[in-house]
């Protein structure tokens, strides 16, 4: 049963990684959210009825770029802390794909190593293209 056991460990690992990722993302967003409410809770709500594209803003909001989010998190900006939670949430399924890649490599299942690598590259390239 040597071939079965590592696979089950891997499923446990994937399952745990997903749970940890989601929990972490929610905690970060909650911290940011509470801080946001503490600072701005009493202000009238922003106008969400009209979408303002980045191109139309005089100054793009920090939380729309990765570097901006990092800058805002360092400066303890509430909105960027929330967005950091969103980024962690987005990374959760990506980490899952990487773990699957490891799992298939351990099983020497090369077809699926290839398939998983393609999925990972599609996500990566789309994200990098966006960043550029």
């Amino acid at each position: 049963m040597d071939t079965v056991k590592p696979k089950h460990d891997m499923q446990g690992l994937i399952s745990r990684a997903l749970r940890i990722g989601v929990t972490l993302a929610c905690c970060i967003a909650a911290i940011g959210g509470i801080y946001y409410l503490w600072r701005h809770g009493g202000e009238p709500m922003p106008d969400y009825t009209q979408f303002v594209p980045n191109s139309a803003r005089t100054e793009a909001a920090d939380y729309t770029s990765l570097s901006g989010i990092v800058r805002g998190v360092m400066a303890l900006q509430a909105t960027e802390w929330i967005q950091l939670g969103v980024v962690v949430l987005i990374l959760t399924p990506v980490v899952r794909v990487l773990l699957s890649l490891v799992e298939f490599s351990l099983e020497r299942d090369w077809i699926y190593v290839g398939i998983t690598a393609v999925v990972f590259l599609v996500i990566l390239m789309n994200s990098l293209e966006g960043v550029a």
Partner: protein
Amino acid sequence: MTTTILIFTLILLVGAYLAGLLGSMTGLGGGVVVIPLLTLGFNVDFHYAIGAALVASIATSSGAASAYVREGITNVRLGMFLEIATTVGAVGGALIALWMPINAIAIIYGLVLILTAAMQYRRKVDHTGVVGSAAAHRLKLCSTYPVKGVGLVAYELTNVVWGFVVMIFAGILSGLLGIGSGVLKVLAMDCAMKVPFKVSTTTSNFMIGVTAAASAVVYIQRGYIEPGIACPVMIGVLGGALTGARLLKRMKVTVLRQIFAIAILLVAINMIYNGFTGKF
């Protein structure tokens, strides 16, 4: 009286919790319910609603997938293979969203809802005696899943190419609307590939997070994801989905689903009407 941020956040948190509860109990997913909640309930712009739906989709998918993977129901290979189709589709969908008028997107969303409502009335028949196609064997897609009281049941599947094609469309809709498009995913696996229903739904759920992640960075950069909305939606929907999953184990929800299908239909008509009259 003007609504303060605090009031808005608290109401949205409760709304998102109910959306997550409903989404998980009806099998729709959190993202689909969040869009009408924001646009029709809170008069929020459709772009922000799509961004919030994306966040909700990833949260509920990853949260629920964690349990299903552990139980061994999810067909990880099948999901992985079809994710090629959904991620490529999602990238395409996010590109289409750039030039497509928002009212047209609202109409498409309405049509997806109608399909969803129709699916709630379909009888779920588990395929028996399916002979796996050559492609399915070559890709090692045939597997087993646990059935209560029986143990592990083996199954085979067929029509891999068709399933793949439908998955590309499911991906496009995900990229366009931020939703998981679980209905199309289940349609591809259950109807085309003849995968057992329980495996279809859990594998679909497993795939939603990855599909959504493919277009997520683009969403952030376009400013679709607004922190003030994303935060209560993410926490509320996830909380609701967890409660829903717990309730599901103790309740029969067939009737709830069919009643809810009528509500979905009404929302769909509302969306399509508003889209045609250019309200968004």
